[in-house]
């Protein structure tokens, strides 16, 4: 995998001709201390939310680029998913939310001393944003400020 072969012809054409927004200039923050001292946050695009949080708007043109804050002590079995994409099998992440939001794996890494700590909150976006203007101007900067306020050193980005 890694190529487009898993998709139908229609989606292969779309993904090949889609105008991906290149990150330019490319920001680069080197690790400043050993991972064993770093605070790590997750950012997923699985459109997870907590019961009681607003669901992502599946009808929004260009995609709902807002995000939900997921606390570090979440029980992943309680997460609700409403990613609208028909491009992938949703069943796997229902079976095991860690597949796309590996907070239990992070907790294990803390126990092993591989990373310093799990951030107090993680972020969940809805992927498949085709009109990223509001994401770039509003939601991504706000998300970054939140994680910076939390003293996060490292973010692991997991798509779906």
């Amino acid at each position: 995998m890694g190529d487009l072969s898993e998709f139908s012809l229609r989606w292969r054409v779309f993904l090949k001709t889609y105008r991906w927004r290149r990150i330019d200039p490319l920001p680069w923050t080197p690790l400043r201390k050993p991972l064993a001292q770093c605070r790590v946050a997750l950012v997923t695009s699985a459109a997870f939310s907590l019961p009681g949080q607003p669901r992502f708007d599946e009808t929004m043109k260009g995609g709902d680029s807002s995000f939900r804050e997921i606390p570090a002590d979440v029980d992943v079995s309680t997460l609700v998913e409403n990613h609208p994409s028909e491009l992938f099998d949703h069943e796997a992440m229902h079976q095991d939310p860690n597949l796309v939001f590996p907070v239990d794996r992070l907790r294990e890494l803390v126990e092993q001393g591989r990373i310093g700590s799990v951030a107090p909150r993680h972020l969940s976006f809805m992927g498949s944003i085709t009109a990223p203007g509001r994401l770039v101007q509003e939601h991504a900067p706000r998300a970054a400020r939140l994680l910076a306020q939390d003293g996060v050193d490292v973010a692991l980005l997991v798509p779906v």
Partner: protein
Amino acid sequence: MSLVGAELERQGISTVSIQLLRVAAERVRPPRTLLVPFRHGYPLGVPNDAAGQRAVIEAALKLLEDPALTPPVLVEYGPRVAG
């Protein structure tokens, strides 16, 4: 989501992205990308396979630790060696 990662880097947070689609990684160019050989919906491999998921995460974390790497970093995740 790479665009979120870019903003995090601008705010001084080191990021590493798991990526399922080579064309996206090559065109968007996130700072550090681990390209995994899995289908969409399975970014860390197999459901309920904690060891396998940890192995993917470990490979991603290693990209943060290698001082020789320069952006944009695009590394393919290799098959796990049994045992």
